[in-house]
């Protein structure tokens, strides 16, 4: 906590080094900050775009990469057709471009692996991004903390990081993936095809070796509210639930 409070995070230039399409609506932008920084899984950066007349738009984006890598920060951005900033990334930004960013930010929705577990992670759509950083961090640290991730997407092809998540699930090292598709049938035996609810949460928790000591929920406001209620109904104490809301 004290490191977050004293960390300095001025605006700095960062260049886009690589762009990778993840799903039809989500693309990853790998950015190299001019002054690389240490961060914790779950944190975000603020991004700032400046028009020629000085007008600026800023938005927050969670970091998808693990803190254990080379300093390049992965942002996975979903395109909102009538948005201001996300369409810029999808339609205009190219490798080699510079943007401005500031970070790392946020000191609550974070999981350093020594915080332990078991951990229950619930993500809706692009809300999986900070949870992905936690899952990757766990793998990079070869942590054995039991982690269950419930990831809600509309359809199979919109499951961001799908192959990587399934590969991690297949390792059988204490990471348990549940996909729930809200507009398509389930594809894997342990998956669902409905919105996150108390029955689903209870079944996922029953596969953990013990009750979660921390739960992280991220996504749209409506998703987070509904999922938080499902966790509370499944017996997770409110004080153990941390949320990150992407706004509307």
């Amino acid at each position, binding site marked *: 906590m004290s490191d977050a409070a004293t960390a300095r995070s001025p605006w700095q230039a960062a260049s886009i080094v690589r762009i990778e399409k993840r799903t039809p609506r989500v693309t990853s932008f790998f950015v190299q900050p001019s002054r690389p920084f240490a961060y914790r899984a779950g944190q975000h950066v603020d991004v700032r775009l400046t028009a020629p007349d000085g007008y600026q*738009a*800023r938005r927050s984006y969670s970091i998808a990469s693990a803190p254990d890598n080379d300093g390049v920060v992965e942002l996975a951005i979903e395109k909102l057709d009538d948005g201001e900033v996300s369409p810029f990334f999808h339609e205009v930004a190219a490798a080699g471009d510079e943007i401005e960013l500031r970070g790392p930010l946020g000191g609550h929705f974070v999981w350093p692996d020594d915080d332990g577990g078991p951990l229950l992670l619930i993500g809706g759509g692009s809300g999986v991004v900070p949870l992905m950083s936690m899952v990757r961090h766990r793998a990079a640290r070869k942590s054995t903390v039991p982690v269950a991730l419930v990831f809600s997407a509309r359809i199979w092809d919109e499951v961001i990081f799908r192959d990587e998540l399934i590969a991690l699930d297949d390792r059988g090292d204490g990471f348990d993936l549940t996909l729930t598709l809200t507009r398509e049938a389930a594809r894997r035996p342990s998956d669902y095809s409905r919105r996150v609810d108390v029955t689903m949460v209870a079944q996922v928790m029953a596969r953990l070796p013990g009750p979660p000591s921390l739960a992280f929920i991220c996504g749209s406001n409506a998703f987070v509210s509904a999922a938080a209620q499902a966790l509370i109904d499944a017996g997770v104490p409110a004080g153990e639930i941390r949320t990150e809301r992407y*706004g509307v």
Partner: protein
Amino acid sequence: MATRGFSSGRRPPADGDARIPPGQYLEQGFPVLSAGPTPRVRTEDWSFTLKHGPRPIKKWNWAEFNALPLTKMTRDIHCVTAWTKFDTAWQGVLVDDILADAGIEPPTAYTLALAFDGYTTNVPTKDLTDGKAMVALLYEGEPIIADHGGPARLLVPHLYFWKSAKWVNGLQFTTRDEPGFWELRGYHIYGDPWREQRYTDDP
């Protein structure tokens, strides 16, 4: 530094410009942000306590609190996640009227706002008095919904909105400026939107 290819920004309306602090954009909706699940506080269970350090000075239940003088406040609000919303209309009890009902003058220069979910946020006492802040009970004439901090939230509209603690259940006077929940987690100790005091290291 202009960003290559970024031009079609959503500029604020010309007449609204002077009301939008640096780095903010105008929002028509009312986004919800909070660190955890939304507590559902029933008015039967609600209470509000004024404290000096650990010592309670006075405690009100919902009916007693609602019997205090109600004041209207219509203000622009500024969230640290960069949205600004114009002309939000609240009604509630001014901190001045809470102090008057308790029969005290502010005993210290700093205050910690306390909430049902354990959230805290620090505000200098002088930013709460002289009509600057209230414990709001109504938004746009209706009871405040739980997602927006109902039944009662603090309203300190001249500071970033995380200072306006949701689900508020007390004010505690402190001798020192004690950082609250977000202030311990990288956010600015004071939070003036016009000086863009978002994060700890902002001047």
